[in-house]
């Protein structure tokens, strides 16, 4: 198996470069992350993030043959060779495949990703009906890997102003949560030419989401809620 991997060490390199590797995957090395972990035993300078190795933590998001994805749930079979691995597009590179996600999380925090409810706390918990709980399906599963935001042209050009698909999916997750009481303020906060309306419905986000979620649909639903609220 041939791989071509983006390399950059800020302490040593002036410019990034692509380094070629070749290895024969063991039968047990079925996912791209397995191959990267073995490469690391050959070249310990190769740097990438990984943790859960099963598509839950979102650490190993990277650009795989031009498309963002998680190395741990990307099967090696079927990948076009040489497999070109690069860091998430448009994010500052810290080293090799590791990127700085500060701006991404700044946008995420800006939507206040927590329940806001000033009503007196019940004795046990704020109960939801099964229907209310079902509203969160397709939203709560987001692992904040940033595959969507990093592949979104609107985020490329306006990372500081546009919340981005991941942040907006999370915003919708709290807007539709029956336990939250700040829906109107949340909609008001997003009613801005850049924060929400910079989305051009290109849908790269939904194309690449490794969890199969649809940030573009969440964004559209926020827009429809705004229209209904303004009528």
């Amino acid at each position, binding site marked *: 198996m041939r791989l071509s991997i983006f390399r950059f060490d*800020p302490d040593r390199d002036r410019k990034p470069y692509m380094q070629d590797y070749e290895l024969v995957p063991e039968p047990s090395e079925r996912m791209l992350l397995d191959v990267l972990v073995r490469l690391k035993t050959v070249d310990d300078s190769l740097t990438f993030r990984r943790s859960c190795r099963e598509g839950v933590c979102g650490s190993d998001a990277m*650009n795989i*043959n031009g498309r963002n994805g998680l190395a741990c749930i990307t099967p090696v079979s079927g990948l076009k060779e040489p497999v070109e691995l690069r860091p998430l597009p448009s994010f500052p*590179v810290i080293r090799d495949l590791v990127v700085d996600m500060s701006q991404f999380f700044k946008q995420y925090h800006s939507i206040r990703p927590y329940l806001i409810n000033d009503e007196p706390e019940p004795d046990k918990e704020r109960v939801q009906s099964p229907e209310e709980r079902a509203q969160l399906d397709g939203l709560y599963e987001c692992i904040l890997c940033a595959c969507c935001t990093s*592949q979104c042209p609107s985020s490329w050009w306006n990372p500081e102003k546009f919340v981005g698909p991941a942040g907006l999916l999370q915003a919708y997750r709290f807007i539709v949560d029956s336990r939250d009481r700040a829906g109107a303020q949340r909609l008001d906060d997003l009613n801005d030419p850049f924060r929400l309306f910079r989305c*051009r419905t290109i849908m*790269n986000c939904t194309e690449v989401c490794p969890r199969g979620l*649809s940030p573009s*649909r969440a964004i559209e639903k926020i827009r429809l809620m705004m229209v209904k609220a303004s009528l």
Partner: protein
Amino acid sequence: MTRTKRHRIVFFDLRRIGMPVGAVTSILHRITGILLAAGVPWAVYLLDLSLGSSQSYLRAVALLDHWAVRGAAILMAWALAHHAFAGVRHLLADIDVGSRLQAARRSAWLVNLGAVAVTILVARVLL
């Protein structure tokens, strides 16, 4: 740390980033918008020329006979068709029609191929 801004780099090579059909359609939507805006003064000039007098009308007809102007007209027909189809696609998406991924992929293909079909028809008339 001296390594911060001086060495901080970003991977952002559009040739290496995959563009699904929706992204290609969006890029073409922008390009066709620019083409149409740039074409307006020329279209107004030709209209004005054709309405001036019988001589200027003949000049306008002669201009439209030129291969370069015909080529530009075909290009503009493509731009107009693509921009209109893509605009309708956006409007429908705004009212929750065809906004799921599979439908959006299909409609993006439809926009791109529909614009080519219109262009072929216009080319057959003009050439």
